[in-house]
Protein backbone atom coordinates (compact mmCIF):
# COMPACT_ATOMS: atom_id res chain seq x y z
CA UNK A 1 0.00 0.00 0.00
CA UNK A 2 1.47 3.36 -0.92
CA UNK A 3 2.02 5.89 1.81
CA UNK A 4 -0.44 8.30 0.19
CA UNK A 5 -3.23 5.75 0.50
CA UNK A 6 -2.31 5.16 4.13
CA UNK A 7 -2.55 8.93 4.66
CA UNK A 8 -5.99 8.96 3.07
CA UNK A 9 -7.16 6.07 5.23
CA UNK A 10 -5.79 7.71 8.37
CA UNK A 11 -7.65 10.93 7.58
CA UNK A 12 -10.81 8.87 7.24
CA UNK A 13 -10.08 7.06 10.51
CA UNK A 14 -9.47 10.37 12.24
CA UNK A 15 -12.80 11.80 11.05
CA UNK A 16 -14.65 8.67 12.20
CA UNK A 17 -13.28 8.70 15.75
CA UNK A 18 -13.71 12.46 15.85
CA UNK A 19 -17.39 12.08 15.13
CA UNK A 20 -17.52 9.46 17.90
CA UNK A 21 -16.67 12.13 20.48
CA UNK A 22 -12.91 11.60 20.75
CA UNK A 23 -11.48 15.08 21.40
CA UNK A 24 -10.31 16.55 18.07
CA UNK A 25 -6.67 17.03 19.08
CA UNK A 26 -6.51 13.49 20.42
CA UNK A 27 -8.07 12.07 17.24
CA UNK A 28 -5.34 13.81 15.22
CA UNK A 29 -2.64 12.53 17.55
CA UNK A 30 -3.87 8.91 17.51
CA UNK A 31 -4.10 8.76 13.73
CA UNK A 32 -0.76 10.54 13.42
CA UNK A 33 0.95 8.04 15.70
CA UNK A 34 -0.64 5.00 14.00
CA UNK A 35 0.03 6.32 10.50
CA UNK A 36 3.63 7.21 11.26
CA UNK A 37 4.22 3.79 12.79
CA UNK A 38 2.85 2.05 9.69
CA UNK A 39 4.85 4.03 7.13
CA UNK A 40 8.06 4.27 9.10
CA UNK A 41 8.12 2.94 12.62
CA UNK A 42 7.26 4.09 16.09
CA UNK A 43 10.83 4.45 17.31
CA UNK A 44 11.57 7.11 14.64
CA UNK A 45 8.55 9.04 15.82
CA UNK A 46 9.83 8.94 19.39
CA UNK A 47 12.94 10.85 18.28
CA UNK A 48 10.64 13.49 16.92
CA UNK A 49 8.51 13.53 20.08
CA UNK A 50 11.51 14.17 22.34
CA UNK A 51 11.81 17.72 21.12
CA UNK A 52 8.51 18.50 19.42
CA UNK A 53 6.42 19.38 22.48
CA UNK A 54 9.12 21.71 23.74
CA UNK A 55 9.39 23.32 20.31
CA UNK A 56 5.63 23.83 20.12
CA UNK A 57 5.12 25.12 23.63
CA UNK A 58 8.26 27.14 24.31
CA UNK A 59 7.54 29.36 21.36
CA UNK A 60 7.60 33.10 21.24
CA UNK A 61 5.14 33.27 18.35
CA UNK A 62 2.58 31.11 20.17
CA UNK A 63 2.85 33.18 23.35
CA UNK A 64 0.32 35.55 21.81
CA UNK A 65 -2.37 32.90 22.10
CA UNK A 66 -2.73 32.69 25.90
CA UNK A 67 -2.18 36.46 26.09
CA UNK A 68 -4.89 37.35 23.57
CA UNK A 69 -7.25 34.81 25.15
CA UNK A 70 -6.63 36.36 28.55
CA UNK A 71 -7.24 39.84 27.13
CA UNK A 72 -10.49 38.73 25.50
CA UNK A 73 -11.74 37.08 28.68
CA UNK A 74 -10.86 40.13 30.73
CA UNK A 75 -12.49 42.44 28.21
CA UNK A 76 -15.66 40.37 28.39
CA UNK A 77 -15.90 41.12 32.11
CA UNK A 78 -14.61 44.66 32.13
CA UNK A 79 -17.72 46.58 31.11
CA UNK A 80 -16.06 47.52 27.80
CA UNK A 81 -18.80 45.88 25.77
CA UNK A 82 -21.42 48.03 27.48
CA UNK A 83 -19.60 51.28 26.74
CA UNK A 84 -19.10 50.24 23.12
CA UNK A 85 -22.77 49.45 22.64
CA UNK A 86 -23.95 52.60 24.43
CA UNK A 87 -21.42 54.68 22.50
CA UNK A 88 -22.46 53.51 19.06
CA UNK A 89 -26.12 53.50 20.03
CA UNK A 90 -26.09 57.16 21.03
CA UNK A 91 -25.40 58.05 17.42
CA UNK A 92 -27.45 55.61 15.35
CA UNK A 93 -29.90 54.14 17.88
CA UNK A 94 -32.81 56.37 16.90
CA UNK A 95 -33.04 55.00 13.36
CA UNK A 96 -35.33 52.08 12.68
CA UNK A 97 -33.35 48.97 13.60
CA UNK A 98 -30.80 51.23 15.26
CA UNK A 99 -30.21 49.00 18.24
CA UNK A 100 -29.36 46.12 15.93
CA UNK A 101 -27.01 48.40 14.00
CA UNK A 102 -25.41 49.47 17.25
CA UNK A 103 -25.00 45.84 18.29
CA UNK A 104 -23.21 45.00 15.02
CA UNK A 105 -21.04 48.12 15.34
CA UNK A 106 -20.26 47.22 18.94
CA UNK A 107 -19.33 43.68 17.87
CA UNK A 108 -16.98 45.09 15.25
CA UNK A 109 -15.24 47.29 17.80
CA UNK A 110 -15.16 44.54 20.39
CA UNK A 111 -13.70 42.25 17.72
CA UNK A 112 -10.73 44.58 17.62
CA UNK A 113 -9.92 43.63 21.22
CA UNK A 114 -11.07 40.05 21.28
CA UNK A 115 -9.94 37.23 18.99
CA UNK A 116 -12.82 34.87 19.55
CA UNK A 117 -16.22 34.64 17.93
CA UNK A 118 -18.05 33.06 20.82
CA UNK A 119 -16.79 35.55 23.38
CA UNK A 120 -17.79 38.46 21.14
CA UNK A 121 -21.26 37.08 20.49
CA UNK A 122 -21.82 36.26 24.15
CA UNK A 123 -20.62 39.53 25.67
CA UNK A 124 -22.35 41.78 23.15
CA UNK A 125 -25.44 39.59 23.38
CA UNK A 126 -25.77 39.97 27.12
CA UNK A 127 -25.62 43.76 26.76
CA UNK A 128 -27.67 44.33 23.60
CA UNK A 129 -30.35 41.64 23.75
CA UNK A 130 -32.24 42.93 26.82
CA UNK A 131 -32.19 46.42 25.30
CA UNK A 132 -33.64 45.20 22.00
CA UNK A 133 -36.28 43.17 23.78
CA UNK A 134 -37.32 46.26 25.73
CA UNK A 135 -37.82 48.13 22.46
CA UNK A 136 -39.94 45.38 20.96
CA UNK A 137 -37.43 44.02 18.46
CA UNK A 138 -38.43 40.80 16.76
CA UNK A 139 -36.43 37.82 18.10
CA UNK A 140 -35.25 36.78 14.63
CA UNK A 141 -33.65 40.16 13.93
CA UNK A 142 -32.16 40.59 17.39
CA UNK A 143 -30.58 37.16 17.67
CA UNK A 144 -29.61 36.95 13.98
CA UNK A 145 -27.76 40.24 14.10
CA UNK A 146 -25.82 39.24 17.22
CA UNK A 147 -24.95 35.73 16.05
CA UNK A 148 -23.62 37.17 12.79
CA UNK A 149 -21.98 40.11 14.59
CA UNK A 150 -20.09 37.64 16.75
CA UNK A 151 -18.20 36.34 13.74
CA UNK A 152 -16.59 39.78 13.51
CA UNK A 153 -14.67 38.84 16.65
CA UNK A 154 -12.53 36.44 14.71
CA UNK A 155 -12.46 38.25 11.39
CA UNK A 156 -11.30 41.58 12.74
CA UNK A 157 -7.77 41.28 14.12
CA UNK A 158 -6.47 40.17 16.56
CA UNK A 159 -7.64 36.75 15.58
CA UNK A 160 -6.46 33.44 17.03
CA UNK A 161 -7.26 31.56 13.82
CA UNK A 162 -5.17 33.97 11.73
CA UNK A 163 -2.25 33.56 14.12
CA UNK A 164 -2.41 29.79 13.66
CA UNK A 165 -2.67 30.18 9.88
CA UNK A 166 0.36 32.47 9.90
CA UNK A 167 2.41 29.93 11.82
CA UNK A 168 1.32 26.98 9.67
CA UNK A 169 2.11 28.73 6.40
CA UNK A 170 5.09 30.76 7.65
CA UNK A 171 3.45 34.04 6.75
CA UNK A 172 3.91 37.35 8.52
CA UNK A 173 1.24 37.79 11.20
CA UNK A 174 1.23 41.57 10.92
CA UNK A 175 0.62 41.44 7.17
CA UNK A 176 -2.19 38.92 7.67
CA UNK A 177 -3.80 41.17 10.25
CA UNK A 178 -3.60 44.06 7.78
CA UNK A 179 -5.07 41.95 5.00
CA UNK A 180 -8.05 41.20 7.24
CA UNK A 181 -8.83 44.88 7.79
CA UNK A 182 -10.74 45.73 4.60
CA UNK A 183 -12.73 42.47 4.60
CA UNK A 184 -13.54 43.13 8.25
CA UNK A 185 -14.90 46.59 7.51
CA UNK A 186 -16.79 45.16 4.52
CA UNK A 187 -18.37 42.65 6.88
CA UNK A 188 -19.57 45.37 9.26
CA UNK A 189 -21.01 47.42 6.38
CA UNK A 190 -22.60 44.32 4.85
CA UNK A 191 -24.30 43.34 8.10
CA UNK A 192 -25.56 46.89 8.62
CA UNK A 193 -27.01 46.93 5.09
CA UNK A 194 -28.76 43.66 5.83
CA UNK A 195 -30.36 45.13 8.94
CA UNK A 196 -31.47 48.22 7.01
CA UNK A 197 -33.06 46.06 4.32
CA UNK A 198 -34.72 43.69 6.78
CA UNK A 199 -36.39 46.51 8.74
CA UNK A 200 -37.40 48.22 5.51
CA UNK A 201 -39.20 45.07 4.41
CA UNK A 202 -40.61 44.27 7.87
CA UNK A 203 -41.17 47.55 9.70
CA UNK A 204 -42.82 45.72 12.59
CA UNK A 205 -39.50 43.93 13.36
CA UNK A 206 -38.07 46.94 15.13
CA UNK A 207 -39.37 50.02 16.89
CA UNK A 208 -37.62 53.34 16.79
CA UNK A 209 -35.86 54.26 19.99
CA UNK A 210 -35.70 57.76 21.45
CA UNK A 211 -33.07 60.02 19.92
CA UNK A 212 -30.12 60.76 22.16
CA UNK A 213 -29.41 64.40 22.99
CA UNK A 214 -26.00 65.87 22.19
CA UNK A 215 -25.24 65.91 25.89
CA UNK A 216 -25.86 62.18 26.10
CA UNK A 217 -23.77 61.68 22.98
CA UNK A 218 -20.92 63.56 24.56
CA UNK A 219 -21.08 61.39 27.63
CA UNK A 220 -21.18 58.25 25.48
CA UNK A 221 -18.12 59.45 23.59
CA UNK A 222 -16.20 59.98 26.82
CA UNK A 223 -17.07 56.45 27.85
CA UNK A 224 -15.61 55.20 24.59
CA UNK A 225 -12.20 56.72 25.32
CA UNK A 226 -10.62 53.91 27.39
CA UNK A 227 -11.73 51.22 24.94
CA UNK A 228 -10.48 53.28 21.99
CA UNK A 229 -7.11 53.79 23.63
CA UNK A 230 -6.95 50.05 24.07
CA UNK A 231 -7.45 49.16 20.44
CA UNK A 232 -5.49 52.05 19.08
CA UNK A 233 -2.70 50.85 21.33
CA UNK A 234 -2.99 47.20 20.41
CA UNK A 235 -3.79 47.29 16.69
CA UNK A 236 -2.14 50.62 15.94
CA UNK A 237 0.93 49.43 17.78
CA UNK A 238 1.08 46.25 15.72
CA UNK A 239 0.44 47.97 12.38
CA UNK A 240 2.75 50.84 13.15
CA UNK A 241 5.56 48.45 14.01
CA UNK A 242 5.84 49.71 17.59
CA UNK A 243 4.92 46.33 19.04
CA UNK A 244 5.36 42.76 18.01
CA UNK A 245 2.04 40.93 18.31
CA UNK A 246 2.95 39.35 21.64
CA UNK A 247 4.05 42.67 23.07
CA UNK A 248 0.79 44.20 21.92
CA UNK A 249 -1.11 41.37 23.55
CA UNK A 250 0.76 41.90 26.81
CA UNK A 251 0.03 45.61 26.66
CA UNK A 252 -3.61 44.72 25.97
CA UNK A 253 -3.85 42.45 29.01
CA UNK A 254 -2.50 45.12 31.33
CA UNK A 255 -4.64 47.81 29.66
CA UNK A 256 -7.80 45.75 29.98
CA UNK A 257 -7.09 45.06 33.64
CA UNK A 258 -6.65 48.83 34.14
CA UNK A 259 -9.97 49.61 32.41
CA UNK A 260 -11.77 46.93 34.36
CA UNK A 261 -10.40 48.39 37.59
CA UNK A 262 -11.49 51.89 36.58
CA UNK A 263 -14.97 50.61 35.72
CA UNK A 264 -14.99 48.86 39.10
CA UNK A 265 -15.80 45.59 37.37
CA UNK A 266 -12.84 43.54 38.50
CA UNK A 267 -12.92 41.60 41.75
CA UNK A 268 -10.57 38.84 42.83
CA UNK A 269 -13.39 36.43 42.14
CA UNK A 270 -13.99 37.57 38.56
CA UNK A 271 -10.25 37.75 37.95
CA UNK A 272 -10.05 34.12 39.09
CA UNK A 273 -12.89 33.25 36.71
CA UNK A 274 -11.03 34.92 33.84
CA UNK A 275 -7.92 32.92 34.66
CA UNK A 276 -9.84 29.64 34.79
CA UNK A 277 -11.56 30.42 31.50
CA UNK A 278 -8.24 31.33 29.92
CA UNK A 279 -6.65 28.14 31.27
CA UNK A 280 -9.41 26.00 29.77
CA UNK A 281 -9.21 27.77 26.40
CA UNK A 282 -5.43 27.61 26.34
CA UNK A 283 -5.39 23.91 27.24
CA UNK A 284 -7.98 23.20 24.58
CA UNK A 285 -6.09 25.04 21.85
CA UNK A 286 -2.75 23.52 22.73
CA UNK A 287 -4.13 19.97 22.76
CA UNK A 288 -5.22 20.64 19.18
CA UNK A 289 -1.85 22.22 18.32
CA UNK A 290 0.10 19.28 19.75
CA UNK A 291 -2.21 16.80 18.02
CA UNK A 292 -1.98 18.61 14.70
CA UNK A 293 1.81 18.75 15.02
CA UNK A 294 2.10 14.97 15.21
CA UNK A 295 -0.52 14.48 12.53
CA UNK A 296 1.28 16.89 10.22
CA UNK A 297 4.61 15.15 10.87
CA UNK A 298 2.92 11.99 9.61
CA UNK A 299 1.26 13.76 6.67
CA UNK A 300 4.49 15.27 5.39
CA UNK A 301 6.26 11.92 5.84
CA UNK A 302 3.58 10.31 3.68
CA UNK A 303 4.10 12.88 0.94
CA UNK A 304 0.36 13.04 0.47
CA UNK A 305 -0.09 16.83 0.33
CA UNK A 306 2.56 17.12 -2.40
CA UNK A 307 1.03 14.26 -4.40
CA UNK A 308 -2.35 15.91 -4.13
CA UNK A 309 -0.90 19.21 -5.31
CA UNK A 310 0.84 17.54 -8.27
CA UNK A 311 -2.31 15.68 -9.16
CA UNK A 312 -4.38 18.86 -9.10
CA UNK A 313 -1.90 20.60 -11.40
CA UNK A 314 -1.97 17.56 -13.74
CA UNK A 315 -5.74 17.61 -14.08
CA UNK A 316 -5.50 21.08 -15.64
CA UNK A 317 -8.48 22.34 -13.68
CA UNK A 318 -8.67 26.10 -13.61
CA UNK A 319 -7.25 27.50 -10.35
CA UNK A 320 -10.59 29.08 -9.48
CA UNK A 321 -12.38 25.77 -9.82
CA UNK A 322 -9.90 24.12 -7.44
CA UNK A 323 -10.37 26.91 -4.95
CA UNK A 324 -14.15 26.62 -5.21
CA UNK A 325 -13.95 22.89 -4.52
CA UNK A 326 -11.85 23.54 -1.43
CA UNK A 327 -14.26 26.17 -0.19
CA UNK A 328 -17.07 23.66 -0.64
CA UNK A 329 -15.13 21.24 1.59
CA UNK A 330 -14.80 24.02 4.18
CA UNK A 331 -18.51 24.72 4.08
CA UNK A 332 -19.36 21.08 4.70
CA UNK A 333 -16.74 20.63 7.44
CA UNK A 334 -17.73 23.98 8.93
CA UNK A 335 -21.17 22.61 9.64
CA UNK A 336 -19.59 20.00 11.90
CA UNK A 337 -16.28 21.25 13.30
CA UNK A 338 -14.92 24.33 15.04
CA UNK A 339 -12.85 26.85 13.07
CA UNK A 340 -9.47 26.30 14.69
CA UNK A 341 -9.45 22.52 14.18
CA UNK A 342 -10.53 22.97 10.58
CA UNK A 343 -7.68 25.34 9.84
CA UNK A 344 -5.10 23.12 11.56
CA UNK A 345 -6.41 20.09 9.73
CA UNK A 346 -6.91 21.39 6.21
CA UNK A 347 -4.29 24.07 5.68
CA UNK A 348 -1.32 21.64 5.63
CA UNK A 349 -3.13 19.65 2.93
CA UNK A 350 -4.67 22.48 0.88
CA UNK A 351 -1.99 25.12 1.13
CA UNK A 352 0.67 23.37 -1.03
CA UNK A 353 -1.96 22.73 -3.68
CA UNK A 354 -3.12 26.36 -3.74
CA UNK A 355 0.43 27.63 -3.88
CA UNK A 356 1.27 25.41 -6.85
CA UNK A 357 -1.51 27.00 -8.91
CA UNK A 358 -1.23 30.27 -10.76
CA UNK A 359 -3.72 32.91 -9.65
CA UNK A 360 -1.75 35.70 -11.26
CA UNK A 361 -0.42 37.00 -7.94
CA UNK A 362 2.88 36.79 -6.12
CA UNK A 363 3.45 33.93 -3.67
CA UNK A 364 2.87 36.11 -0.64
CA UNK A 365 -0.24 37.77 -2.05
CA UNK A 366 -1.80 34.40 -2.80
CA UNK A 367 -0.97 33.15 0.68
CA UNK A 368 -2.54 36.18 2.38
CA UNK A 369 -5.59 36.11 0.15
CA UNK A 370 -6.18 32.39 0.67
CA UNK A 371 -5.83 32.85 4.43
CA UNK A 372 -8.48 35.55 4.60
CA UNK A 373 -10.91 33.65 2.38
CA UNK A 374 -10.46 30.50 4.47
CA UNK A 375 -11.03 32.49 7.62
CA UNK A 376 -14.32 33.91 6.32
CA UNK A 377 -15.63 30.62 4.99
CA UNK A 378 -14.68 28.86 8.21
CA UNK A 379 -16.50 31.55 10.15
CA UNK A 380 -19.64 31.03 8.10
CA UNK A 381 -19.69 27.62 9.77
CA UNK A 382 -20.18 29.35 13.11
CA UNK A 383 -23.64 30.48 12.03
CA UNK A 384 -24.83 27.60 9.84
CA UNK A 385 -26.87 24.70 11.15
CA UNK A 386 -26.55 22.14 12.61
CA UNK A 387 -23.59 23.19 14.78
CA UNK A 388 -23.55 26.99 14.44
CA UNK A 389 -22.00 27.66 17.84
CA UNK A 390 -22.75 31.41 17.75
CA UNK A 391 -26.38 30.76 17.02
CA UNK A 392 -26.70 28.44 19.99
CA UNK A 393 -24.99 30.74 22.41
CA UNK A 394 -27.06 33.77 21.40
CA UNK A 395 -30.25 31.76 21.44
CA UNK A 396 -29.44 30.64 24.97
CA UNK A 397 -28.89 34.22 26.15
CA UNK A 398 -32.08 35.46 24.48
CA UNK A 399 -34.69 33.80 26.63
CA UNK A 400 -37.87 32.84 24.85
CA UNK A 401 -36.77 33.20 21.22
CA UNK A 402 -37.40 29.91 19.38
CA UNK A 403 -34.32 28.31 17.78
CA UNK A 404 -36.07 28.37 14.41
CA UNK A 405 -36.41 32.16 14.56
CA UNK A 406 -32.72 32.57 15.26
CA UNK A 407 -31.71 30.40 12.31
CA UNK A 408 -34.14 32.25 10.05
CA UNK A 409 -32.83 35.55 11.40
CA UNK A 410 -29.28 34.57 10.50
CA UNK A 411 -30.09 33.72 6.85
CA UNK A 412 -29.92 37.25 5.41
CA UNK A 413 -26.57 37.75 7.14
CA UNK A 414 -25.33 34.53 5.58
CA UNK A 415 -26.32 35.94 2.20
CA UNK A 416 -24.16 38.98 2.88
CA UNK A 417 -21.26 36.66 3.81
CA UNK A 418 -21.57 34.94 0.45
CA UNK A 419 -21.60 38.23 -1.40
CA UNK A 420 -18.45 39.23 0.46
CA UNK A 421 -16.67 35.95 -0.34
CA UNK A 422 -17.54 36.36 -4.03
CA UNK A 423 -16.25 39.95 -4.01
CA UNK A 424 -13.00 38.80 -2.42
CA UNK A 425 -12.65 35.98 -4.94
CA UNK A 426 -13.12 38.41 -7.80
CA UNK A 427 -10.97 41.19 -6.35
CA UNK A 428 -8.12 39.67 -4.31
CA UNK A 429 -6.60 43.14 -4.10
CA UNK A 430 -9.13 43.89 -1.34
CA UNK A 431 -7.03 41.79 1.01
CA UNK A 432 -3.37 42.58 0.32
CA UNK A 433 -3.98 45.94 -1.36
CA UNK A 434 -3.52 48.03 1.78
CA UNK A 435 -0.21 46.52 2.80
CA UNK A 436 2.59 49.02 2.24
CA UNK A 437 5.64 47.72 0.38
Amino acid at each position, binding site marked *: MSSEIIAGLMILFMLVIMFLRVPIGIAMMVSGVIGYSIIDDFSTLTYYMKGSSFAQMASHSLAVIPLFLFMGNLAARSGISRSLFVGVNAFIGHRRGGLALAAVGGCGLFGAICGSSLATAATMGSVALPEMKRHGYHGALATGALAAGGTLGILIPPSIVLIIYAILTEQNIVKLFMAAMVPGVMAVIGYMLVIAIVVKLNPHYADKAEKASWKERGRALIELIPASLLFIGVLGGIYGGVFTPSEAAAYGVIGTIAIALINRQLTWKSFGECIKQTATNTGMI*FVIILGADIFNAFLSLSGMPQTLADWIVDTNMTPMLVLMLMLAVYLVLGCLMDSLSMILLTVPIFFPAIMSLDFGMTYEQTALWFGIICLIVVEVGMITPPVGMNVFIINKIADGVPMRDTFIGVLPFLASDFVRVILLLLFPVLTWGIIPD
Partner: protein
Amino acid sequence: MWLALLGGAVLTLMAITTVLSVAGRYFFSAPIQGDTEIVQMFTAVVVALCLPYCQMRLGNVIVDVLTASAPRAFRMTMDIIGSLLLGGLFAILAYYTYDGGLAAAKYGNETMMLRMKEWYFYQTIAFGFLLTAIAGFAKPIALLADYEGSK
Protein backbone atom coordinates in the same frame (compact mmCIF):
# COMPACT_ATOMS: atom_id res chain seq x y z
CA MET B 1 -7.60 24.22 40.06
CA TRP B 2 -4.59 25.63 41.86
CA LEU B 3 -2.51 24.77 38.85
CA ALA B 4 -4.75 26.89 36.65
CA LEU B 5 -4.49 29.83 39.02
CA LEU B 6 -0.73 29.40 39.15
CA GLY B 7 -0.75 29.34 35.35
CA GLY B 8 -2.74 32.57 35.33
CA ALA B 9 -0.29 34.17 37.74
CA VAL B 10 2.62 33.21 35.47
CA LEU B 11 0.69 34.58 32.48
CA THR B 12 0.09 37.89 34.25
CA LEU B 13 3.77 38.02 35.19
CA MET B 14 4.64 37.38 31.55
CA ALA B 15 2.43 40.28 30.45
CA ILE B 16 3.96 42.59 33.03
CA THR B 17 7.51 41.64 32.04
CA THR B 18 6.77 42.36 28.41
CA VAL B 19 5.07 45.67 29.13
CA LEU B 20 7.95 46.80 31.34
CA SER B 21 10.45 45.74 28.73
CA VAL B 22 8.67 47.59 25.92
CA ALA B 23 8.33 50.67 28.10
CA GLY B 24 11.99 50.39 28.96
CA ARG B 25 12.92 50.08 25.31
CA TYR B 26 11.04 53.20 24.23
CA PHE B 27 11.42 55.53 27.16
CA PHE B 28 14.75 54.64 28.68
CA SER B 29 16.24 52.66 25.79
CA ALA B 30 16.92 49.97 28.36
CA PRO B 31 14.86 46.91 27.54
CA ILE B 32 14.87 43.96 29.89
CA GLN B 33 17.60 41.68 28.62
CA GLY B 34 16.23 38.53 27.04
CA ASP B 35 12.56 39.42 27.56
CA THR B 36 11.55 37.34 24.55
CA GLU B 37 13.26 34.34 26.12
CA ILE B 38 11.38 34.84 29.35
CA VAL B 39 8.10 35.02 27.43
CA GLN B 40 9.02 32.01 25.33
CA MET B 41 9.91 29.79 28.27
CA PHE B 42 7.05 31.01 30.41
CA THR B 43 4.59 30.17 27.65
CA ALA B 44 5.68 26.57 28.03
CA VAL B 45 5.08 26.76 31.77
CA VAL B 46 1.65 28.38 31.33
CA VAL B 47 0.52 25.81 28.80
CA ALA B 48 1.87 22.91 30.85
CA LEU B 49 -0.16 24.15 33.80
CA CYS B 50 -3.31 24.68 31.73
CA LEU B 51 -3.48 21.28 30.05
CA PRO B 52 -4.43 19.12 33.07
CA TYR B 53 -7.01 21.66 34.21
CA CYS B 54 -8.60 21.69 30.77
CA GLN B 55 -9.05 17.91 30.78
CA MET B 56 -10.51 17.94 34.30
CA ARG B 57 -13.13 20.41 33.11
CA LEU B 58 -13.61 18.28 29.95
CA GLY B 59 -12.79 21.44 28.05
CA ASN B 60 -11.41 19.70 24.98
CA VAL B 61 -13.31 20.26 21.77
CA ILE B 62 -15.36 17.31 20.65
CA VAL B 63 -17.68 16.96 17.69
CA ASP B 64 -21.03 16.04 19.13
CA VAL B 65 -23.43 16.79 16.29
CA LEU B 66 -23.75 13.20 15.25
CA THR B 67 -23.88 11.71 18.73
CA ALA B 68 -25.93 14.34 20.56
CA SER B 69 -29.09 12.25 20.33
CA ALA B 70 -27.40 8.91 21.05
CA PRO B 71 -28.26 7.13 24.32
CA ARG B 72 -26.53 8.56 27.35
CA ALA B 73 -24.69 5.31 28.14
CA PHE B 74 -23.16 5.30 24.65
CA ARG B 75 -22.05 8.89 24.90
CA MET B 76 -20.49 8.25 28.30
CA THR B 77 -18.67 5.16 27.02
CA MET B 78 -17.21 7.18 24.15
CA ASP B 79 -16.21 10.01 26.47
CA ILE B 80 -14.42 7.49 28.69
CA ILE B 81 -12.60 6.03 25.69
CA GLY B 82 -11.64 9.54 24.58
CA SER B 83 -10.35 10.43 28.01
CA LEU B 84 -8.33 7.20 28.28
CA LEU B 85 -6.83 7.76 24.83
CA LEU B 86 -5.83 11.25 25.91
CA GLY B 87 -4.32 9.85 29.08
CA GLY B 88 -2.34 7.24 27.16
CA LEU B 89 -1.02 9.67 24.56
CA PHE B 90 -0.01 12.27 27.11
CA ALA B 91 1.74 9.57 29.14
CA ILE B 92 3.78 8.73 26.02
CA LEU B 93 4.46 12.42 25.34
CA ALA B 94 5.44 12.95 28.98
CA TYR B 95 7.93 10.09 28.84
CA TYR B 96 9.61 11.24 25.63
CA THR B 97 9.68 14.88 26.63
CA TYR B 98 11.31 13.79 29.88
CA ASP B 99 13.80 11.84 27.80
CA GLY B 100 14.36 14.86 25.57
CA GLY B 101 14.91 16.91 28.71
CA LEU B 102 17.61 14.50 29.89
CA ALA B 103 19.33 14.90 26.53
CA ALA B 104 19.04 18.69 26.75
CA ALA B 105 20.60 18.55 30.22
CA LYS B 106 23.40 16.31 29.01
CA TYR B 107 24.29 18.63 26.15
CA GLY B 108 23.82 21.65 28.37
CA ASN B 109 21.36 23.45 26.03
CA GLU B 110 20.85 27.01 27.19
CA THR B 111 18.93 30.01 25.89
CA MET B 112 21.00 32.58 24.04
CA MET B 113 20.87 35.63 26.27
CA LEU B 114 19.98 34.59 29.77
CA ARG B 115 21.60 31.17 29.63
CA MET B 116 18.51 29.61 31.15
CA LYS B 117 18.83 25.84 31.21
CA GLU B 118 16.39 24.46 28.65
CA TRP B 119 15.99 21.17 30.48
CA TYR B 120 14.17 22.86 33.38
CA PHE B 121 11.43 23.72 30.93
CA TYR B 122 11.48 20.33 29.26
CA GLN B 123 10.84 18.77 32.65
CA THR B 124 8.12 21.29 33.51
CA ILE B 125 6.35 20.33 30.29
CA ALA B 126 6.87 16.62 31.03
CA PHE B 127 5.40 17.17 34.49
CA GLY B 128 2.38 19.00 33.02
CA PHE B 129 1.88 16.17 30.52
CA LEU B 130 2.11 13.61 33.32
CA LEU B 131 -0.60 15.44 35.27
CA THR B 132 -2.68 15.65 32.09
CA ALA B 133 -2.29 11.90 31.62
CA ILE B 134 -3.39 11.35 35.21
CA ALA B 135 -6.37 13.65 34.61
CA GLY B 136 -7.20 11.62 31.50
CA PHE B 137 -7.15 8.38 33.49
CA ALA B 138 -8.97 9.83 36.50
CA LYS B 139 -11.79 11.59 34.64
CA PRO B 140 -13.59 8.34 33.66
CA ILE B 141 -14.02 7.54 37.36
CA ALA B 142 -15.77 10.86 37.89
CA LEU B 143 -17.85 10.32 34.75
CA LEU B 144 -18.92 6.87 35.95
CA ALA B 145 -19.76 8.13 39.42
CA ASP B 146 -21.84 10.89 37.86
CA TYR B 147 -23.66 8.43 35.69
CA GLU B 148 -24.39 6.02 38.54
CA GLY B 149 -25.46 8.90 40.74
CA SER B 150 -28.02 10.20 38.25
CA LYS B 151 -29.62 6.83 37.50
